[in-house]
């Protein structure tokens, strides 16, 4: 792997992303829309729930609005990063293959895209955390931010994989919206989770570990090490899968 190749490809990836009108619009619209809906539809009534990653039989008591703000923050990060990551591997795939024919390696191109994704994860995570701060102060803000970034990491890698698998945008978007809607937008909500059956399924979905990090950090003093590790393993596995599919799609016979 040549660093100069990675840097050049990363710079071009960032430029492409910044010139994508839909990406810039979504960056501002999704979090604003999600938080506006929370503010319009929730109250400060207290709710109780148990955190799945905390073994003790302890109920957490918070305002409905605060819980929803953290939960929807996670949903916004997951949806945004996966959509933007999808673009990174799906858009211009034939031109990327031409680059490989001209001398790039698959790993150099994928590394540059992953670097772009890391920048996106940090940017989106910080932006949504700042928005969250406008409405309430979580107990451990840096760890809430970390949870957002982990959600971005897991869902971003999922987006890279979906972008590498599907050639057409519509199919890719469908797979992203479908999973994000079911997982990070619904099943991982602790209020739903507390009463759900077959929790085994929910615990194995991509947003489980990151949402536990953010929730535990926002409303308790419990350790987030286990879900932190789980998030990193989950995201890394998705990244590996994305790399394998991308490599297969970009293969050339030298």
């Amino acid at each position, binding site marked *: 792997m040549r660093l100069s190749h990675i840097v050049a490809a990363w710079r*071009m990836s960032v430029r492409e992303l910044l010139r994508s009108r839909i990406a810039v619009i979504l960056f501002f619209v999704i979090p604003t829309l999600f938080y506006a809906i929370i503010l319009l539809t929730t109250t400060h009534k207290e709710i109780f729930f148990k955190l799945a990653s905390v073994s003790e039989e302890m109920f957490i008591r918070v305002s409905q609005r605060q819980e929803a703000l953290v939960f929807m923050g996670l949903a916004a990060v997951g949806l945004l990063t996966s959509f933007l990551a999808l673009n990174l591997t799906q858009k211009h795939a034939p031109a990327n293959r031409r680059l490989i024919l001209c001398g*790039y390696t698959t790993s150099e191109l994928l590394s540059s895209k992953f670097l772009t994704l890391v920048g996106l994860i940090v940017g989106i995570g910080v932006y949504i955390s700042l928005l969250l701060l406008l409405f309430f102060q979580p107990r451990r803000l840096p760890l809430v931010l970390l949870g957002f970034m982990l959600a971005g990491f897991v869902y971003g890698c999922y987006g890279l994989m979906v972008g590498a698998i599907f050639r057409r945008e519509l199919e890719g978007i469908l797979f992203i919206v479908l999973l994000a809607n079911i997982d990070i937008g619904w099943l991982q909500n602790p209020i739903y989770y507390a009463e759900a059956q077959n929790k085994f399924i929910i615990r194995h979905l991509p947003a489980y570990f990151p949402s536990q990090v953010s929730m535990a950090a926002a409303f308790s003093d419990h350790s987030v090490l286990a879900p932190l590790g789980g998030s990193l393993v989950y995201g890394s596995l998705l990244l590996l899968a994305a790399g394998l599919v991308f490599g297969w799609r970009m293969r050339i*016979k030298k």
Partner: protein
Amino acid sequence: MVNVVEVRNLAKSFGKRCVLKDINFSLRRGEMVGIVGENGSGKTTLLKTIVGLLSPSAGEIVVREKVGYCPQEMLVFETLTVHENFAYFAAAYGLRQGPGADGWHGRESFLLSRFSFAPYRDALVSNLSGGTRQKLNLSLAVLHEPGLLILDEPYSGFDWETYLHFWNYAAELKAAGACFLVVSHFIYDRSKFDTVYELREGVLQCA
């Protein structure tokens, strides 16, 4: 003289459909070979197999030169400018930066001027006309001064003047020792080619 390209008993099938059957030919330094054929006759498949975008089902391909491949589709980055596309591909080819004779900036200026699209250097590719995009598509294939040019419909979309510029440039490269494999629906002037083959029902024959 050593052949730059040797294709021996090449076959390519997609499932049960056999697109290329027992293709044999070679190219020497300074030689220009044209391949004509109807739509769907397998011309593009042949070129893609030679450059490595497709794997052959059988046979052998030997390439002994730096390849410049101009695909039929505009495989460029539409949300980047013309200059950024040059920079991206220059990085891929491992070309040095800088305006000197050995830097890619010099090559970029030369190609922009040669194919008359210098005013579009900083324009986004998505805003360019089809002909100008094709100029970029072709320029990216010759940016690193390859010894073997594999060109798929290289002048489609060109106006007459650019078509003539293309052939003048090709003649210069040919005189300098580069060899060409050009695929087209139509070859207007056969005198420009050393050999013209026709691809018909997967079989290559002299036209």
